């Protein structure tokens, strides 16, 4: 796999997760307390750094064949989840991911909780917990994607760089705007990430199980567009099926 494709896949996936985490931190800071939200953000980043430091060497120590089978299976299951939700959203059978709406809901929920202020780094425990949980949960997906892609391609530093770049770009934009990044084409990005995760999961999973792809790595050049076209065709088919008013709770929406 080309270094460029690896970088783009990890960057897109991580940017999507970072946009979601930024919305939660902004809501925690605005509705509750900025110091607590910032402390929660830093604590979650520290926890993610420790998880990466522990899992990173472990992933790279696994023999390549076994790694490809294990990681390929996980990526394929994970990717199909993303793609399934993206197809349902694109065809009108699931509510589109709307950062503004999620932000407003989080603000309302956070504002409704009583405030018990204390001195110190965490004046408001609710704001801290909200930011910490949001960043940790979204960040775990970033760590998972960066480590699996990087480990399989023997390019963990490049995958980590793509993840850090994505998080920095989104964090700087979020801080500059002090508003949810609603203009980011999140639903389209999720669709693209779903296609990439599913394609690479298919390729590595089958290879790890002992299959030999015609054309070796070049098979990915067929696999990625073929899966993208198949997904677009499914969106077209599902659009013909009457969709109920999308009622999914946007806050509970995952990837």
């Amino acid at each position, binding site marked *: 796999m080309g270094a460029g494709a690896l970088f783009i896949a990890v960057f897109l996936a991580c940017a999507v997760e970072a946009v979601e985490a930024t919305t939660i931190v902004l809501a925690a800071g605005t509705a509750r307390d900025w110091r607590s939200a910032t402390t929660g953000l830093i604590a979650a980043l520290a926890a993610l750094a420790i998880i990466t430091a522990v899992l990173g060497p472990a992933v790279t120590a696994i023999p390549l064949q076994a790694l490809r089978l294990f990681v390929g299976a996980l990526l394929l299951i994970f990717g199909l989840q993303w793609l*399934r939700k993206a197809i349902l959203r694109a065809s009108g059978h699931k509510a589109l991911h709307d950062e503004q709406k999620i932000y407003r809901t989080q603000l309302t929920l956070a504002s409704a909780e009583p405030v018990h202020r204390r001195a110190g780094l965490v004046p408001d425990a609710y704001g801290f917990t909200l930011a910490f949980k949001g960043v940790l949960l979204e960040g775990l997906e970033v760590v998972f994607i960066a480590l699996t892609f990087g480990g399989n391609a023997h390019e963990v530093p490049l995958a980590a760089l793509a993840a850090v770049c994505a998080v920095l770009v989104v964090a700087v934009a979020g801080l500059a705007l002090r508003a949810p990044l609603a203009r980011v084409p999140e639903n389209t990005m999720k669709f693209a990430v779903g296609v990439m995760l599913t394609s690479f999961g298919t390729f590595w999973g*089958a290879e790890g*199980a002992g299959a030999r792809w015609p054309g070796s790595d070049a098979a990915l050049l067929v696999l990625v567009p073929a899966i993208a076209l*198949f997904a677009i065709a499914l969106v077209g088919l599902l659009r013909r099926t009457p969709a109920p008013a999308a009622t999914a709770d946007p806050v509970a929406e995952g990837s």
Partner: protein
Amino acid sequence: MRQLRAFGLFAYDFVIGDDWRVAVGVAAGLVGTYLLAHDAGVAAWWLVPALLVTLLPVSLWRAVRRH
């Protein structure tokens, strides 16, 4: 014990997600690929893509029907 259970539920939701049949199908496809490649000694690359074009529409159809 409660924390262990909560972690298990989180891990399940994180990896398996909304439709466990997809995960089972993927596992079965990879086992089938292994058997075809190692025991039967035939080209096995097509099995996972073939499974994918079956699993995804079925899972989507179930999701649409549930609404």
